């Protein structure tokens, strides 16, 4: 066989191609949201200006963006494991909620007298467990009960939401009142430490960065990462290589659930300082979009997550400044989701035709 241009150059081209795909998707998102804004009667470029200023206008605003970026990145890291083995972990939303519930439960059970550091450590550990267990149930339903993971996950999301509401209105209600605003605030010493000027939690940031590092390592340099990829690409052949797809599916779900649980714990300890009904802030669903838009590439995940976090935070101000209906922010996000899905479908289609071309180009026998 004649050798083609060096592997280095083709690899560079490959990576550039991936970035281009993401850029094209972002452009599509941009065009579509412009259209939505225009139709809603909001001046699109003023709206973008406010979104930009609302997210990057000051260090405080940027730290708000980072606050959203942390759980989004944590969830996205977890989803990389499940996507790699070919599972749609829609249940990530519920896994964030259960992480929040487990963390809250631990922080409520008389740890005030102990050292906060140990409390946080235990709370995070409990959250990882909570998320992982919740995910493992969906995984178990999938591998043992033959329930599709999307339906199992969706069902588990409703159950998790129900549990949170029951806790807030029942066992964990504030003395005297039970209200939608959530449980009682934690004492000050159980608020996750943050830099006072920036309202930025270095611990949360470290967790997100560590999650990115660990996930890169796991997926690229460990057998587990390779095995997940193999099973995702061809479960039948993976069996012939001696792998047990069921076990690895459970493992991938547990990893995803663990990271999601950690995101939930951050929401409780670092953002809201109590359990509220909407504790997950839809970051789980949003993370699905992040990973897809990043084309399942871990290097792009933090960038895309930042984009989504910025949009999320920046659009909060739109109703106030532009006098548009407050549902517009939701509409923009919905439009985003649709565009990402469409772009994803388009890429999937393109990729398939590329694979076809590749197999057509089978190396001829000499």
């Amino acid at each position, binding site marked *: 066989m004649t050798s083609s241009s060096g592997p280095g150059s083709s690899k560079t081209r490959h990576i550039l191609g991936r970035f281009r795909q993401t850029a094209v998707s972002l452009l599509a998102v941009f065009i579509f949201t412009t259209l939505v804004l225009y139709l809603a009667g909001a001046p699109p470029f003023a709206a973008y200006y406010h979104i930009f200023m609302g997210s990057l206008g000051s260090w405080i605003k940027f730290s708000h963006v980072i606050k959203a970026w942390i759980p989004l990145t944590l969830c996205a890291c977890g989803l990389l494991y499940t996507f790699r083995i070919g599972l749609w972990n829609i249940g990530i939303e519920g896994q964030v909620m259960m992480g929040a519930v487990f963390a809250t439960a631990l922080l409520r059970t008389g740890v005030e007298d102990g050292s906060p550091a140990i409390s946080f450590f235990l709370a995070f550990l409990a959250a990882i467990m909570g998320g992982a267990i919740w995910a493992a149930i969906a995984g178990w339903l999938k591998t043992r009960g033959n329930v599709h993971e999307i339906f199992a996950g969706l069902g588990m999301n409703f159950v998790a939401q129900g549990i949170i509401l029951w806790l807030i209105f029942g066992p964990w209600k504030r003395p005297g009142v039970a209200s939608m605003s959530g449980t009682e605030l934690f004492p000050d010493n159980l608020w996750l430490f943050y830099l006072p000027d920036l309202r930025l939690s270095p611990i949360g940031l470290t967790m997100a960065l560590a999650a990115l590092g660990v996930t890169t390592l796991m997926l690229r340099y*460990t057998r587990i990462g390779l095995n997940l990829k193999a099973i995702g690409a061809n479960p039948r052949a993976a069996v012939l290589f001696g792998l047990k797809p069921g076990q690895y599916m459970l493992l991938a779900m547990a990893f995803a659930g663990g990271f999601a649980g950690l995101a939930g714990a951050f929401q409780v300890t670092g953002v809201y300082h109590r359990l509220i009904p909407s504790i997950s802030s839809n970051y789980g669903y949003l993370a699905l979009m992040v990973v897809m838009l990043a084309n399942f590439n871990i290097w792009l995940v933090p960038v895309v997550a930042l984009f989504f976090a910025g949009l999320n935070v920046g659009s909060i101000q739109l109703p106030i400044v532009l006098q548009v209906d407050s549902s517009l922010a939701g509409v923009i996000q919905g439009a985003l989701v649709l565009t990402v899905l469409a772009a994803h479908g388009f890429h999937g289609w393109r990729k398939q035709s590329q694979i076809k071309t590749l197999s057509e180009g089978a*190396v001829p026998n000499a």
Partner: protein
Amino acid sequence: MTDYRLIGRSPNRFYLMQIDLKNIHKHYGSIRANDGISLIIRPGSIHGILGENGAGKSTLMKILTGFARKTSGSTLIDDQPVDIDTPAIAAQYKIGMLHQEPLDFTALSVLDNFMIGQISGVYQKKETYQVELMETSAQLGFELDPDVQVHRLTVGERQQLEILRLLALNTRVLILDEPTTGISRNQKDILFTGLKALAGAGKSVILVSHKLEDVIALCDEVTVMRQGKVSGRMTAPFHTDRLLKMMFGTLPSPPVHRPANPGKVAIALDQVTATGGRAGLENCSAMIHEGEIVGLAGLEGSGQGVFLRVAAGLKRPIRGKITFKGEMLNGTGYYGFKKRGGAFIPASRIEEGLIPGLTITEHFCLNEKQGSFFTVWRAALKRAKECIAQFNIKGRPAIDAAALSGGNQQRLLLSLLPLNPTVLLLENPTRGLDLGSAHWVWRHLQEHAARGTAIVFSSSELDEILMVADRTIVFYNGTVVTDIPAHKADADTLGRAVAGGERPQ
């Protein structure tokens, strides 16, 4: 007399069409899949495109049918240059292709499949189509029940259906890609008679094949391809040795049958019943010894496939016992089979054997012992390079396994086997491989057998079984009809047993 009804219902039904391919190039990166191919397909003739795997035959046909675009060159239909850029354009020019895997809807009936692509409007009179189906079918000597669901048909019957469907669409140039793979001898005879009738009625038929006997039996004219180029042309009557020389350059040496030296029982099935295939498997008992090569013969879906999968632990039997060197294997699954030194290679290499999207190196990494936490890429790459050299795999370590040709995929699968497996089960190990690759595969498998590996393989080619098997087990309709040693087996005896004829003594 020529039967013009076969040409179809179009107004210009007597239109004959000539295709001219001129200096076709198709490059994939640095690989020249087609390197200046020119040929003429005359109406009313059967044109063979002969060549080993990867010679560029399929690429050429993809260009002709709009599935791939040529890098350069021109296609002329009746001296008019045309651009066949999509399959839809090919269909407009009435060029139809019968793919190796029939492109049909298995959940629908024969008649429904026949109607797909022809129907328009809201109300359909099924009877009209049924009459048409039955008439054309009878003219070509096919026997199809219009109400049967397609998944109940054999590959050969599905081909017949696909041909009828293409004819109903007024196809004037019919391309067949390796049509005799996986069909019985009888079905092949029917197919060939039908194709000759079509050519007689003015259609052009293109037969893409690596099987010399098919080309000789059917074609009027042959273009031989080798390494992306035309290596020779010949019109009937053909000269076998010269065709072989055009195909391969030098002739590959066939594997030599060596006397078996069976040892202890390696794997045994005792009164096993299982579902699957068309007929399942019923009360099957067999013993396979170390160092023995056992061929499983039978029509497709007669039980050989289920036999292999039950023995490998991939399929759970309803009843019966499977023992591996005397140890019970039931319930341990493929993991138990693999742990004890068994290996299974499926017929569909890229669908079930290899992992598309993973490189050759990644396959070797996956194949190593799952001991360490981290992947050892350096060792895997070294092993990949060694095996590429040793097994003569045409591909770099970083190439996606899906991009390998069929023969190279099989070489990769063989290179992934453990050094000394106790039992080796193979499903159609040389399906779709050219003679050279097939012989290479068998010489390699014989080395395994000489080291004491028990080899069981299924094959739809009796010639292959007669060539290499020490013993042949013939399946018919889910049961073992005969178990016969090599010195008693001949094509006639086996052929009759396969077809369900009388039981040989």
